[in-house]
């Protein structure tokens, strides 16, 4: 599609981008302010709010938990999601249609309802400790990415290559690892990144699954904000934005960012 853009429309788009990016710039500014309250533009410049983060052990501990849960949850979702995506694409005939819908249920069910139900039935009902409950909750939350994004790259994979390997005597599991997996690498990386970022930013599930000594970083930020409204939160936010920058750099290097519009 191609057409000329009216100058007014162009100006509108520029305003939209200002609207999207200005709040993030404001956070960066507020994180540098030498005041005990949040303000923008910053008054005086200091990095003490960044060092302050590391003095608050709750931030350190919850950041570690968030990172572990995101890695383990995403890993688990790929571990169960890749075989499912493989079967859905390889044996298109003979598998019921609802199976595909089942794996995207975590997007359809409101996250906050899922979090509450998980707490009620699994953490309390089955007595599963909070930490594994968190991992399972996050693994299911991001399962749709594993199944759909990996599934999209499997859809363009030519399965006759796999059959050739097997008919030449390569065992199926080895064929999968050495023939199929390298061909769907981009999909697996994309799924991992989307799942990781979703997990590390999650609030609605984690908010129900906190306990003595266990919480995730976003929940800790919410809790901190209820008591203190100082630039520490802004500096934590800046660090989280740096994580986003890192993730985007990985996406750009491996897949190109335009894959996100597909």
């Amino acid at each position: 599609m191609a057409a000329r853009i009216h100058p007014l429309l162009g100006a509108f788009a520029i305003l939209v981008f200002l609207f999207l990016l200005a709040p993030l710039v404001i956070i960066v500014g507020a994180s540098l302010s030498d005041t005990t309250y949040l303000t923008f533009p910053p008054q005086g410049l200091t990095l003490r709010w960044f060092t302050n983060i590391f003095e608050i052990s709750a931030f350190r501990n919850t950041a570690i938990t968030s990172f572990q849960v995101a890695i383990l949850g995403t890993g688990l979702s790929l571990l169960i999601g890749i075989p499912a995506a493989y079967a859905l694409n390889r044996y298109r005939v003979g598998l019921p249609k609802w199976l595909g819908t089942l794996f995207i249920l975590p997007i359809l069910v409101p996250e906050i309802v899922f979090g509450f139900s998980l707490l009620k039935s699994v953490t309390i009902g089955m007595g599963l400790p909070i930490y594994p409950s968190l991992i399972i909750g996050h693994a299911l939350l991001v399962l749709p990415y594993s199944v759909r994004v990996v599934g999209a790259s499997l859809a363009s994979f030519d399965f006759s290559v796999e059959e050739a390997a097997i008919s030449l005597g390569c065992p199926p599991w080895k064929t999968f690892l050495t023939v199929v997996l390298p061909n769907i690498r981009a999909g697996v990386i994309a799924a991992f990144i989307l799942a990781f970022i979703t997990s590390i930013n999650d609030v609605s599930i984690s908010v129900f699954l906190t306990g003595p000594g266990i919480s995730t970083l976003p929940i800790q930020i919410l809790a901190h904000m209820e008591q203190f409204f100082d630039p520490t939160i802004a500096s934590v936010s800046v660090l989280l934005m740096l994580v986003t920058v890192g993730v985007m750099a990985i996406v750009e290097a491996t897949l190109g960012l335009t894959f996100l519009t597909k």
Partner: protein
Amino acid sequence: MNKFAKWGLTLPATILVVALLVVPVLATIATTFGEPKGIFSTYTAFFNSGFRTGILYRTLRIALITTAISLVIGFLTAYVIAQMPGRLKSIAIIAAVFPLLTGVVVRSFAWLIILGKNGIVNSSLLSLGIISDPLSMLYTEGSVIVAMVYLFVPLMILTLTGVLEGIPRDVVEASASLGAKPIATFFQVILPLAVPGLIVGAVLVFTGSFTSYATPQLLGGEQMMMMGTLLYQRAMVTFDWVGASTIAAIMVVITIAVVSIMSRIARRLNPMAV
């Protein structure tokens, strides 16, 4: 072998989703029908409470307004992005992806700095002499809507950019070469072809804002509760689990109804489908 592989490979994911998502959510819904006062007693209690129905209507209102504003902003911006030359386009997409990948807590928090008592809006209005006392903009429906629009516009832009890029170039060129003005081409060719994508984007934004928790928690507070914050408060502050389950059930029914009705409409309206 094939039969085993076919089922065996989907089995772990199936078991986990069924046992840890489907069954728990159904159990949550089931508990709402087990009250001694009658099967539907928790629902009559919910709908007889002006406070709770007020929150339901507010949530629907905020979600609808957010969806409408995001649709307009997202569509116009995506339209501009789709016309951009390659390099500028990648920059625009990066600018939209960055907020999208930044967490909801961080993005909502930004609006606390902007709209707060010492916030940037108040301090600029004060220094310009337009107001003499800081305005209370936080904890209003307006502040929640602004933050939600901010949250969902990037998603809308990316969804619709993909849709607009999928519209074949020759269709647009044919319209122009047959003498249609750009405005006519926009409303009579591009917009109808984009309708299914607009519906997909609208459903994403509506369900996302209808079920949100962090944004109304931060920018709405106790005064402007939404269904998500009400559910949390009933479950974790007052420990009224049946009440919380009732809210959960209402949210599930509305979400699934909206998704299934709108995706059916989108399929019917798709002019590219034969």
